[in-house]
């Protein structure tokens, strides 16, 4: 996955992501594609969660999955989640949960609770940083005020790094793929540098839904695992998602 929250020169935030999934779960030799990624595409849905006929939050999801990987609480926050691969991974959390140790929360349930209940960016940040989970993760969070954007790097038990936007230092966006941002990515899976190159080329003045979609459409940020691209803006109350394809030649991840 690739998630980015960028702040334009007027202080408005745009939060966007590519959702990549299905690595090593079967390769379709005939169509040169990952089977699971292709099977997931017809299942992508936008969901408007309502209470009393009013929107509580919006999400792009897969039919049958009741948690949240991409969501926006209008007027309050935007949230995406990227997979963090770790040997102390979710399979251990699942095993512990099955065996009766149930302090850890399922990731999708945590994100959904945050979108349903959080009343502010700060509130969401606190919950996403401190709740024990079954699996490690990256949470990418955006708020409704300038400067409110961060990447929370999570182990199963706690937050191990917190990276917030700092426009004073010229950091006008935070961008996360599937590697700890303070370490180099795996050399055969470097989507971070190509994405940052395109973000820097666009510049803070030029950032918009149009240009951020361009960034997320550039290979290898767009790759064979990409199922959808979603873009969210609290200030303009916009939420858009599109199904994606990466015709050959295209990186498998």
């Amino acid at each position, binding site marked *: 996955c690739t998630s980015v929250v960028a702040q334009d020169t007027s202080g408005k935030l745009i939060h966007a992501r590519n959702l990549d999934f299905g690595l090593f779960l079967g390769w379709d030799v005939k169509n040169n594609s990952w089977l699971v990624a292709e099977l997931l*595409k017809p299942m992508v849905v936008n969901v*408007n969660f309502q209470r009393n006929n009013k929107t509580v939050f919006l999400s792009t999801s897969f039919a049958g999955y009741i948690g949240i990987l991409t969501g926006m609480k209008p007027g309050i926050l935007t949230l995406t989640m990227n997979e963090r*691969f770790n040997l102390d991974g979710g399979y251990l959390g699942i095993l512990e949960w099955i065996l009766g140790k149930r302090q850890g929360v399922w990731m999708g349930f945590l994100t959904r609770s945050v979108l349903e209940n959080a009343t502010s960016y700060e509130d969401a940040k606190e919950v996403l940083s401190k709740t024990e989970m079954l*699996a490690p993760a990256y949470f990418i969070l955006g708020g409704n005020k300038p400067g409110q954007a961060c990447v929370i790097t999570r182990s199963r038990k706690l937050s191990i790094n917190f990276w917030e936007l700092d426009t004073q230092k010229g950091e006008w966006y935070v961008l996360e793929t599937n590697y700890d941002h303070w370490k180099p990515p795996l050399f055969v899976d470097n989507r971070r540098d190509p994405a940052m190159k395109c973000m820097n080329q666009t510049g803070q003045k030029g950032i918009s839904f149009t240009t951020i979609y361009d*960034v997320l459409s550039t290979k290898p940020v767009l790759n064979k695992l990409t199922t959808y691209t979603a873009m969210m803006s609290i200030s303009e109350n916009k939420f858009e998602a599109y199904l994606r394809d990466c015709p050959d030649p295209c990186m498998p991840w």
Partner: protein
Amino acid sequence: AQDVPPYTETCRSGTYPPSGPTFKGNVQWYTVNLDQPPYERWQKLISDKKAPLKELVQHIKDLAKSISPKLIDIVDNTLPLLIGNLPYPFGEEIKGVADAAGVPLGEIMLFNIFYEVFSV
């Protein structure tokens, strides 16, 4: 290793509004009414998406069977016993999804912990 054309491109422009070969379609909107009982919330969405959901679950089952046929037995027989341990309203919602899709409960539970399972 990845920085080799044509696998890496120069930054693209003019791709929005989405069209062309990298655009596969729009995403359909659904409403989930949180005032409804959790079991009923997903019925409409799942009745529309039953076929692709079943296809995905079948693929995962085939994959699991190729590793060990016992894996699916565990999913089908053990996971459902734990549904009562899920916090409200998630257990009821998952039951509703499984029944609407006509897919065994354990397999929908597995789909909902996909992320946790594959984060290694």
